[in-house]
């Protein structure tokens, strides 16, 4: 098996006349934390949705675990979907179920664990995401934003996936909760050997966790590399992204920590 978990090539996406991606291509290596960044509306989330087979590009190839996913229907995508977990931007927890039931539901669908073990495994996942034990029987509406993200992460990890997709894992969180998520992402990768692909705006999160970053803009990949490499890039859009007032602060902080 090659070292790449995701390989995207020559990807074109259009909505009507609006071109979102033009010949986009990159690869995500096994065990790395890969981040996709870019301005709002540049098609990051669309790219993520195409990778997890919720949306279909006009042209191009997306291979996940070496399997072509473009054009798969839900049934064909199932074996792949059991190997990856997705955390949606707003959590997308089932509001009628408790946090524990949200995780158990996935286990019930896809494994033959007994009910007691299912609840215990769910409790372990919930604990791994740093939620207190009493969060399990709570409903999503009773949780704070940060806790809801963690609960969503627990559900995404229910099947012990090899690959995690995170859509804006820190959006809408206070700095303290966001820092918690940073560490969580790193720890999970280190402890469980996950490959993580995330879409984010959060420069702090990028500096702290991402191994490699791809900058999407004007419908194509403007640059790809480590944060340090990208911050030296002279492509105007990338420069702007990293050297705007917020980018500078995040970068300085990252340097100070080193």
């Amino acid at each position, binding site marked *: 098996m090659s070292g790449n978990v995701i390989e995207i090539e020559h990807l074109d996406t259009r909505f009507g006349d609006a071109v979102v991606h033009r010949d986009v291509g990159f690869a995500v290596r096994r065990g790395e934390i890969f981040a996709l960044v870019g301005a709002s509306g540049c098609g990051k989330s669309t790219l993520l949705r195409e990778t997890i087979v919720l949306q279909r590009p006009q042209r191009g190839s997306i291979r996940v*675990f070496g399997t072509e996913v473009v054009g798969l229907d839900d049934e064909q995508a199932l074996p792949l979907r059991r190997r990856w977990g997705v955390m949606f931007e707003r959590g997308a927890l089932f*509001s009628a179920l408790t946090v524990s039931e949200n995780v158990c539901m996935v286990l019930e669908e896809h494994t033959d664990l*007994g009910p007691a073990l299912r*609840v215990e495994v769910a409790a372990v996942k919930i604990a791994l995401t740093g939620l207190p034990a009493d969060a399990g029987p709570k409903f999503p509406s009773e949780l704070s934003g940060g806790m809801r993200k963690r609960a969503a992460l627990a559900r995404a990890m229910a099947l012990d996936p*090899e690959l995690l997709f995170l859509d804006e894992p820190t959006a809408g969180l206070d700095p303290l909760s966001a820092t918690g998520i940073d560490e969580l992402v790193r720890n999970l990768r280190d*402890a469980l050997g996950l490959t993580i692909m995330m879409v984010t705006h959060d420069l702090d999160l990028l500096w702290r966790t991402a191994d490699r970053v791809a900058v999407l803009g004007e419908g194509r990949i403007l640059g790809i590399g480590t944060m340090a490499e990208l911050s030296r890039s002279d492509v105007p859009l990338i420069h702007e992204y990293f050297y705007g007032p917020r980018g500078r602060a995040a970068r300085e902080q990252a340097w100070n920590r080193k």
Partner: protein
Amino acid sequence: MTSTTDPAAQAIAEIRPGATPAELRCSGAWVLHALGALERHIAELPVARERELHIDASAVSAMDTAGAWLLCRTMRRLEQRGATVHIDGLRPEFEALYRLVTSRAPAKAPAAAAAPGTLERIGRSALESLRGAVGLLAFVGEAAVALARSLASSNRMRWRPILYNIQKAGFEALPITGLLSFLLGIVIAYQGAEQLRRVGANIYIVDLVGLSMARELSPLITAIIVAGRSGSAYAAQIGTMKVTEEIDALRTIGVGPIDLLVLPKVLALIIALPLLTVYTDVMGILGGMVMARPQLGVSFATFLDRLGDAVSLTSYLIGIGKAPVFAVIIALVGCYQGFQVTGSADSVGRQTTVSVVQSIFLVIVTDALFSIAFSWFKL
């Protein structure tokens, strides 16, 4: 997940007694999809009552968090029996995972909440109903106060939403209410014809259809259809707005949710429902008329001639007079249930159902009360 894709690691997960009674050997892939069988296997495992046990995990070829938890749980159970347990030979990467899970895992399984007994359930649902009734009453009061305030200053009245709601709940309901009352008229005439023909009182089909439609059935069927059509929509709309915090947003902007969302609906329905009832009166009687001619030989001209005598103005007005009362019930129950929604998609569905059931129930109860009151006053 660590090397789960490696075929060599796919060996079946096992735990079995080792060379000595004090030894257990684990092997294979301790990963999620294998755990169901493994768990049952562990439950049947004969374990010697030794004070000290060794688990040899050197043959474990793959492990994920769920597998680590099962190992951890097995160990904890053995320890509970009073044994000291050592795990040896775990590969370093699995060792790290195992330590992580052990350190994070809750000490004891979360206890499931005990199911309430029958008595408790009866008590709870009684309290719930009582609270619901009080809440509805409070809501009626709130709406009345808001209405009084709106009436006091006429520029606070929101005419545009009122007109919009009249169109939605009234005008757009014309086809369905018309069709159903027409069919109802046919059914009543058909059922009545058989009895009337026997006694030769054919012409009284007009009294039967005219009175039963105008006085009872047409207001009732219209109210029930509107409750199902518009009452549920009110509950769903306000409920969804509550979930998305739009209600709170209205409040912070300084617009009373009741002023904007409830009053226009109530007023619109008070106007639309009597009008719809007049229309369904006509359609229902038309249905009866169409059926009376082939069944009883009552011509259209004779039918219409008799209609004026059969249905007194009082009966007709009583029928229409019920409609505004039903309108208030439907609109207020629908809106009230919308406001009862709490944070989840499931709750929107539940309250919508409750709104329809409750408003149809209240409409029929009110209709019965009307009948009792009218018989009291000999109307």
